[in-house]
């Protein structure tokens, strides 16, 4: 009985949150103290995608940036994680890999902004992607280090014994075996960039607009309806991933917890 009540309460809270955002995104008037909006319309959605500096471009830019970060971090992280996992001082290396998360993205952004400015990367998409890559790469190495267990080592050893060269071991043995974990890593590193606000703010310097910066701008200017519309766009990819790939998410969390 208690379990059911608790589950129902949690489900209700989740639906309330989504419902509030969905309502706000189609609200024209919602005066105090009425419980539901008195007028609805779809202008927020039209405005977001129709205006010259519309969010349509921002969505595409955010997707492009997050995809680049995810692909770069996962590819580099996969190769590096092997060296880290087998290194005699891997505990120390793991400590180093946790540093960017411990010092907070704001400190990372503030400390890097000067170098990015000197390299003409501040205020540029490439600069923001590179800054996000530092966090995503560290995360990818931590996550993928768990892959290099004795079974995988034995498997690649067996392939070499059977005549496979190094390229074949990577392409025909390691990549197929690691595929599920690589998919998880791609999703997680995509989200690191997709959710980022601090690094985009400090490295982008207001000239690189993403969905998170757009949300903050709308919120700051008092337009919570457009902010809610941006919030729904931000939630869409990860929620779709949960709906479509529950098992993938389950494994992602497991991997994250183990990392």
């Amino acid at each position, binding site marked *: 009985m208690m379990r059911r009540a608790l589950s129902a309460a949690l489900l209700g809270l989740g639906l309330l949150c989504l419902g509030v955002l969905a309502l706000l995104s189609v609200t024209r008037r919602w005066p105090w103290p009425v419980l539901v909006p008195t007028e609805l319309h779809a202008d927020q959605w039209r405005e977001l995608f129709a205006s010259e500096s519309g969010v349509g471009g921002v969505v595409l830019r955010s997707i492009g940036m997050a995809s680049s970060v995810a692909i770069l971090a996962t590819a580099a992280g996969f190769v590096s994680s*092997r*060296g*880290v996992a*087998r290194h*005699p001082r891997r505990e120390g290396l793991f400590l180093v890999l946790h*540093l960017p998360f411990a010092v907070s993205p704001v400190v990372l952004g503030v400390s890097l902004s000067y170098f990015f400015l000197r390299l003409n990367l501040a205020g540029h998409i490439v600069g923001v992607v590179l800054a996000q890559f530092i966090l995503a790469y560290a995360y990818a190495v931590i996550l993928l280090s768990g892959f290099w267990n004795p079974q995988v080592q034995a498997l690649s050893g067996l392939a070499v014994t059977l005549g496979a060269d190094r390229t074949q071991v990577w392409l025909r043995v390691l990549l197929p075996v690691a595929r599920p974990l690589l998919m998880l890593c791609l999703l997680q590193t995509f989200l690191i960039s997709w959710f980022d606000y601090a690094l985009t703010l400090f490295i982008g310097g207001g000239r690189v607009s993403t969905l*998170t910066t757009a949300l903050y701008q709308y919120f700051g200017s008092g337009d919570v309806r457009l902010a809610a519309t941006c919030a729904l766009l931000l939630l869409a990819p990860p929620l779709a991933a949960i709906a479509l790939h529950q098992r993938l*998410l389950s494994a992602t969390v497991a991997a994250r917890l183990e990392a």
Partner: protein
Amino acid sequence: MSSTGNGRPSDLWANITVGLVTAPVAAGVAFMILYSIGVIGLLAGGFTLESWVQVLADVRTWVTLGFSIWVGGASLLTSLVLALGIHTILGAAPRRRALHGLWYAPLAVPPLVAALLSVEILGNAGVLARLGHALGWIGQPLDFPSPLYTRCGAGIVVTHVALVTPFLVLLFDRLARNERVEGLTEAARTLGASATQAWLRVRLPVLMRAATPALSVYFLALAGAFEVPLLVGAQYPPMISVAIQRRFSQFDIAMRPQAYALATLYAVLSAAILFLVFAARRRRERLERGA
């Protein structure tokens, strides 16, 4: 890589890893130190500890640091108590298919969206205030006891708790399986322990011991949080990340060395805590291996 064939298999990629992660952090911290002591930067006029003295002597610095630790600790502790309670009540339910997605949903919510939801639900004109008015409990928005924008940081804590608790429930579920907590609890009950004793002396210590490293890193992340305090925090006291951002973004460029001094102070403190967490874990593992 193990097949480099030079007898030092892991060094190349380990060095690359360290370089890609440490170099930017170390270079950034070195730059902040040099800027804050007047060696480099637009205002560089030779070595001086003036900004450090100003930052360290400013009571607001310590209030900000104390407030960040308070918010991080309160958020984590509240989430911990809730997650342990939910985990005890639900048992294996989070693993069941119907509830599965529900537990993962908060992981899909970025802090900015969580803060926006807090404003719209817990704010003075939010959903709960409207509900309170409909039930006749309040007459106007200001009558609603909103936790947002309060000096004690209640709104930040509530928002963090909503984000963190589901993750901790999943963490405890996972750890309970790895550590075979159900079996241990059952053994304790068979040996005569009451349900409360089994919970307090078996389940809780086993789960907390296994969760401590993850919780320590989580504490650092919560104490250094930026987006949630930016949206639902009071003007004063600010959390450390917001305080750094404010000093850094001020029109008065003379404040920048102080911003870098404050950021360096926080970076060193959090790195030291991380180091202590890793050292403690290593020591414990060594002791366990020895035993």
